[in-house]
């Protein structure tokens, strides 16, 4: 373990924060930039899309992201089959190839099953993961909270398995903490440093704390910050919550008890009891 408990080791690189933040859906690029700063993140996700020829305001997302400060993690959002995901991943790599960013060979792989749930297609995700690993990518792989699928993806060479807390953008928080606990146990039992990052569904700062209290290594979120009433303040809350959750995990919570246990000593009480 690194000496700084708030660093995240993934794909052979040490990130200064355990929080990975998405760059989508902010009201303005200035709000995005300030939110990223307030979150303390050092890794941000980006999407690959066609150049727009009309209504261009001349601003590129990358003009608002300090490429020396942030590792860029291109995603395959919007892909519904393995072939498209591989194509999009390669294009993301090509864009970053001469920008000197360490994220150039990283990809946040997501291959979705339908547009309503945005749940991953497990068969296509596994196929795409295998192909991208063969192609030299460091694959950070979005998946459901299914422990068996998580094991399959790790075996396929994923640099990190990233189970969803709940559906993308739903803000429902962690729906199945038991599955996440099983995933953490299965993936880390012989490999304690293997990074498991909870991706998607986070709604607010307390969800982030819960992610870390479960023992996850990182969290990836976008909408919870971008659509908060005050994104910059929420980003700061997320930063603090990640630190709090990680510290609580390392400190070790007390077991839950059915009955109370007095905090003040029994000895020396001057009162009488009615029984």
């Amino acid at each position, binding site marked *: 373990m690194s000496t700084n408990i708030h660093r995240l080791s993934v794909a052979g690189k040490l990130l200064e924060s355990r929080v990975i933040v*998405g*760059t*989508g*859906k*902010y009201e303005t*690029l200035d709000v*995005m930039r300030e939110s990223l700063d307030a979150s303390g993140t050092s890794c941000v*996700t*980006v*999407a*690959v*899309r*066609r*150049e727009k*020829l009309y209504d*261009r305001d001349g601003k*590129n*997302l*990358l003009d608002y992201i300090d490429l020396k400060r942030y590792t*860029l993690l*291109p*995603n395959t*959002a919007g892909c519904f089959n393995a072939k498209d995901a591989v*194509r999009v991943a*390669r*294009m*993301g790599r*090509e*864009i970053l*190839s*001469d*920008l000197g960013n360490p994220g150039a060979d990283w990809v946040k792989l997501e291959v979705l099953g339908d547009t309503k749930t945005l749940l991953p297609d497990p068969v296509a995700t596994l196929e795409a993961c295998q192909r991208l690993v063969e192609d030299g990518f460091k694959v950070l792989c979005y998946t459901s909270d299914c422990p068996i699928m998580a094991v399959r993806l790790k075996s396929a060479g994923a640099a990190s398995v990233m189970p969803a807390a709940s559906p*993308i*953008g739903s803000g429902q928080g962690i729906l199945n903490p038991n599955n996440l606990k099983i995933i953490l146990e299965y993936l880390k039992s012989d490999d304690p440093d293997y990074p498991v990052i909870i991706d*998607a569904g986070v709604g607010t700062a307390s969800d982030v704390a819960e992610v870390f209290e479960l023992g996850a290594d990182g969290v*990836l*979120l*976008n*909408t919870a910050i971008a659509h908060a009433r005050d994104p910059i303040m929420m980003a700061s809350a997320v930063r603090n919550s990640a630190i709090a959750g990680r510290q609580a995990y390392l400190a070790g919570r007390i077991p839950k008890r059915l009955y109370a246990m007095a905090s003040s000593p029994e000895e020396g009480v001057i009162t009488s009891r009615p029984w």
Partner: protein
Amino acid sequence: MDRSKLHSVIALDMVEFEFNGTPHKSPPQTTVAGLLESLGIEYRFCAVEVNEEILPKAQYSIYEVKPGDRIEVVTLVGGG
């Protein structure tokens, strides 16, 4: 030569291809670099695919767009 004939000669000479999913025409011998320049697209933040194969940046000023090519030019945008 009258105007209509001139127009048809130019139209025949134009190279027709697909750019980001829509039909597009360029003069003959248009390189990808020339195409990007004519569309005001910055090199530094884009990737180009020709018929689903990535075109390395070193090829932009060499590859001439051919009739029927499917050209995709992508960049990075905000995403989660």
